[in-house]
């Protein structure tokens, strides 16, 4: 950076600092990262094997049944057609691999996000700290997360999960906080008047009442997770993203579109299914 006087402000070595920090972490905490890595890999393998073990038609039948029970006939028909198409296009295995990554990443993200969201709802101070962090996490371009994942967990699915968890967590935190803060004050007052403790208020009142909102957050987390899992093909994650990636490298747009359509089908099914949980449960009348 130089101006007319020839005076130069040296570039701030932000990138170098971050690298030094990452180096420090990877060398000193490698045993921990290796542990996490092993654990996550096992989880991925078990779930993947289980889903692969089922014959295609059986899984389609199961999902369709679920769709029918939760959302009605339209989604059930959609599920038969969509999953059937994926099977027909020979994209079944990559689809299962992607699904596995999404499920595991979402589970981890939710387990971390919901408690954080609760904390942010109950403590104004924590709220003030975490909200800017969430803004930062959400505006950072998605694939930047892929880079630091590699030194920690190497190329492959574990890095993909790590990056996906970080990327997809914010909505679950935000919506949990929002849901709890939305609980009407007069209900809190009523619970207080009867001598409810903080945790009684949380478990008997705030969490049940915020459940639809929390579920809406989890729905968004799942959607973000899916998009990230696809991008994570760049660091060697298996699945539909990898099919797209291969198609790009071989310049075969047709293959790329097929894989893309499979992603869309998976996304729609996951979205519609989880949306049914976030709708307000109407009391039976």
């Amino acid at each position, binding site marked *: 950076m130089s101006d007319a006087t020839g005076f130069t402000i040296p570039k701030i070595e932000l990138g170098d600092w971050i690298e030094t920090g990452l180096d420090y972490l990877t060398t000193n905490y490698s045993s921990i990262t290796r542990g996490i890595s092993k654990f996550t890999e096992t989880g991925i393998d078990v779930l993947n094997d289980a889903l692969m073990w089922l014959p295609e038609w059986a899984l389609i039948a199961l999902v369709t049944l679920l769709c029918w029970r939760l959302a009605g006939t339209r989604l059930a028909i959609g599920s038969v057609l969509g999953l059937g198409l994926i099977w027909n296009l020979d994209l079944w295995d990559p689809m299962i691999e992607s699904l596995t990554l999404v499920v595991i990443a979402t589970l981890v993200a939710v387990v971390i996000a919901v408690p954080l969201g609760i904390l942010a709802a109950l403590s104004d101070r924590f709220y003030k700290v975490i909200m800017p962090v969430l803004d930062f996490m959400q505006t950072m371009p998605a694939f930047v997360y892929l880079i630091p994942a590699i030194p920690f967990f190497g190329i492959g699915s574990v890095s993909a999960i790590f990056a996906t968890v970080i990327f997809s967590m914010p909505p679950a935190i935000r919506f949990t906080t929002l849901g709890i803060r939305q609980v009407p004050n*007069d*209900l809190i*007052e*009523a*619970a*207080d*008047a*009867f*001598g*409810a*403790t903080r945790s*009684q208020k949380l478990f*008997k*009142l705030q969490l*049940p*009442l915020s459940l639809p909102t929390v579920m809406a957050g989890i729905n968004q987390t799942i959607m973000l997770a899916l998009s990230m899992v696809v991008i994570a093909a760049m660091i060697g994650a298996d699945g539909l993203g990898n099919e797209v990636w291969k198609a790009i490298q071989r310049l075969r747009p047709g293959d790329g579109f097929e894989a893309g359509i499979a992603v869309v089908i998976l996304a729609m099914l996951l979205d519609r299914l989880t949306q049914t949980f976030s709708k307000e449960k109407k*009391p039976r*009348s």
Partner: protein
Amino acid sequence: MTDTRDVKIRVRNLSKVFGNQPDKALKLRDEGMKRPEILEKTGQTLGLSNVDFDVMEGELLVIMGLSGSGKSTLIRCLNRLIEPTEGEILIDGDDVAKLDDKSLLRCRRKHFSMVFQNFALFPHRTVQQNAEFGLEVRGEEKEVCYQRGRDALKQVGLDGWEDAYPSQLSGGMQQRVGLARALANDSTVLLMDEAFSALDPLIRKDMQQELLALQHKMKKTTIFITHDLDEALSIGDRIILLKDGEIVQIGSPESILTSPANDYVARFVEGVDMSRILTARSAMTDVRATARDDDGPRTALRKMGDNGLDSLFVVRRDRTVLGIITAEDTERAVRENLTDLSSIIHSDCCQVSPEEPLHNLFAMFAGHHHPLAVVDEQSRLLGVVIKGSVLAELAEAGEAHA
């Protein structure tokens, strides 16, 4: 007569300042400034100022005042939903204002239950689960919660609705759930903040009558807030009048009517001379049930129970009045296996003609809660007059007149 009862809650010097400089506001208050000036000078709202009163065991105390007079603040200071700025709140000798968090929880669970103007029912819980809330929070056994919740719902006439959700009920029914939730945990004090104000007038009258019946039966210490003089007069044993966070008058409904201390009441009372042309007939209500002279104590007791009454007039076949029996005496008679009512009838009960001026009825109510019998020339029962309806009638007449 209230003085012979024990004091349940003793409130002394209770003040509340909304704002961040309470000391400054209180200092100005001590220098004689009133709420509006203090607000202007310091930006602090003097919610309550030096409030002193006692609540007697088993009484129904009404706190009345215009909007903004500090009624809600006062009742919320009692169980510390609002932190008082200074003062003492002694309940059974313990100062609520000084309790630490743990003791405060215990105190709320034992002593206070509350009914809210906007019901504040938990929408995700069934009616039954709402009724159980206080017990559940206190850690009672499942069966105890269930049983007492059910009993409370029955008391407010909601049996059969246990599995409904609040959103499926009408306003009046929702507030019954609110009442059941408060009754179920059998706290020693019932706090009701404009509990009936959101209900339409007919339902409201019903609920008032039911509250009175429940209160006479259970003798639960109740603090009831309203901004409605009518309501205050018809249900209160005593009334506290608040204005700008200060008490302007404490007294029985009669004394509020006869020697009003604030303009708002005075305006009503101007019309009370109307009582000379109002008669017992105007305040009379239908007889819900009577005992026959050949009924046994068990039958009589059942009739009281079925109709939510704590006394019955005993009449002959031709409806001439023999006297009145009380629930207490009748229960005793049942226990002692008496077969007829003759020994427990109070034949000195008050009988009035329908033409009796209303203001003459006050004296007849002194010292008891029993209704008066309105009778024709042959001493046949025409209707009953209860204390509350005399006052309500007077107040209404006052309103119409003013």
